[in-house]
């Protein structure tokens, strides 16, 4: 079953083409790596899936519904099915860990009650489970400012999991972490994907990481907003790497 479809998708920002004629079909439960250097348009592609960026031409569909044609309420309901993990974690810095995870539940909760800080017991339980999944149960009451970078990303992953997402978008999830932590986070994301079987799109500029963790995954290479490669990593060659990164690239 197709889960996400880009068709003829183009984005213009301030008259400049960011994405050009991008086509992609992502099947339900598939793991896709968006590979490209910084500024190649990976984030724009991810942000268009949950409607933060509108296409200038073409469309993106999730579960067979065009995102740009969704009304406010439908878009909100669509967004809660799409968990996002960010490069900078984007946690709410002044809230504690469990509250941050609970924020992942907001789309399902009564607007007024959750705004006065009342969360149903089952949502609190679910959030605790999500924290357990990322091995952060013991830090539940800490303020997120006190956590290490790796721990912050774990909390952010728990928040995305709390949405019970059908799609997980991970935008350079390990780019702000040092080598070991980056590997931890990649391990975690891949094991989550194996267990949960949700669709996962992970963007990265790091070819080394891809070779280490995503050897059996479908790689979509992007250069200046255009798709220039779409195959498993086995078919990846130095010339393709050179195309993606420009100039000489040591493979």
């Amino acid at each position, binding site marked *: 079953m197709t889960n996400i479809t880009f068709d003829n998708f183009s984005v213009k920002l301030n008259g400049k083409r960011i994405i050009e004629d991008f086509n992609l079909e992502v099947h339900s439960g598939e793991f896709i790596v968006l590979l490209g250097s910084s500024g190649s348009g990976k984030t724009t592609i991810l942000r268009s899936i*949950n409607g*933060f960026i509108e296409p200038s031409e073409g469309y993106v569909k999730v579960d067979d519904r065009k995102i740009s044609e969704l009304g406010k309420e439908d878009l*909100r*309901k*669509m*967004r*809660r*099915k*799409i*968990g*996002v993990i*960010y490069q*900078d974690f*984007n*946690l*709410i*810095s*002044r*809230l504690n860990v469990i509250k941050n995870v609970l*924020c*992942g*539940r*907001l*789309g*399902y*909760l009564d*607007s*007024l009650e*959750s*705004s006065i800080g009342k969360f149903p017991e089952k949502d609190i339980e679910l959030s605790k489970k999500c924290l357990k999944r990322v091995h952060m149960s013991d830090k539940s009451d800490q*303020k997120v*400012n*006190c956590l290490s970078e790796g721990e912050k990303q774990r909390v952010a992953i728990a*928040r995305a999991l709390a*949405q019970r997402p059908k799609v997980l978008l991970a935008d350079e999830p390990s780019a702000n972490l040092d080598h070991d932590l980056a590997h931890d986070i990649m391990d975690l994301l891949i094991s989550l994907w194996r267990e949960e079987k949700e669709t996962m799109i992970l963007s990265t500029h790091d070819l080394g990481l891809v070779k280490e963790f995503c050897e059996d995954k479908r790689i979509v290479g992007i250069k200046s907003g255009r798709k220039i490669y779409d195959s498993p990593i086995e078919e990846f060659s130095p010339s393709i790497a050179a195309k993606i990164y420009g100039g000489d690239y040591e493979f």
Partner: protein
Amino acid sequence: MNSKLKISKKVFTLLLIIAALIWASGGIELSITRLIRGIPEFFEFIMDMFPPNLEQEFLLNSLGALRETIQIAILGTSIGFAIVMPLSLSASKNIGPKYGREISRGFLNVIRSIPSILWALMFVVAVGLGPFSGVLAVSAYSIGFLGKLLYEGFEDIDMKQLNAIKSAGATKLQTVRYGVIPQATPMIISHTLYMFEYNVRASAIVGIVGAGGIGRELETYLQLRLYSNVGTLLLLLIISVLIIDFASAQIRTRYLQNGNQ
């Protein structure tokens, strides 16, 4: 070419400032001799306030007036804050709705253009003499002033945090509650305390036109030329303003420290 342009820009700015000063002095009758001649009279006025009147009955009466001034400031700031929170959220470029933003901004700009003493005069006419009109005047002024401080503060928040909440499917209310308020709280507290400090002074002033508090007493004793009474009132006002400023600075730094642990 470029440096010449820079110089001519500087010269132009300087000329503009000089022109503004010349224009401002027109008809004001600036006079150093008058100022110098006035100095002894000013000190005489100050000296007349000493020793301040410390009779128990007068002191109690003055403390009552001071209490009323502080009450006006607390209530005025609180009412103003309650009204201005939703207004400033809708006036900020990054949070407010497209049209609501312009309307809220326009409204805040108009309110802000009227000084607190004028508000007091209008409310004295509308609801009569006394502290109630003082509270209304201080509230009105707070709306205009605090509104601008807050919406500019809201415009500085980290949009990434807000968008993360939005992307979880949060409603507008939830987005404000979890994407805006937590990160804006230190800013809100800091600006509101600043407004309160300002309002303690403003509440003293509005009394002069009859809107209650220590200002009313000041006005009366100035008219009666009972300067030692004026001295007491001013002393009380200065001490309380200093204490409030100090306390508010303490709260601010403590709160900010706790927030950034």
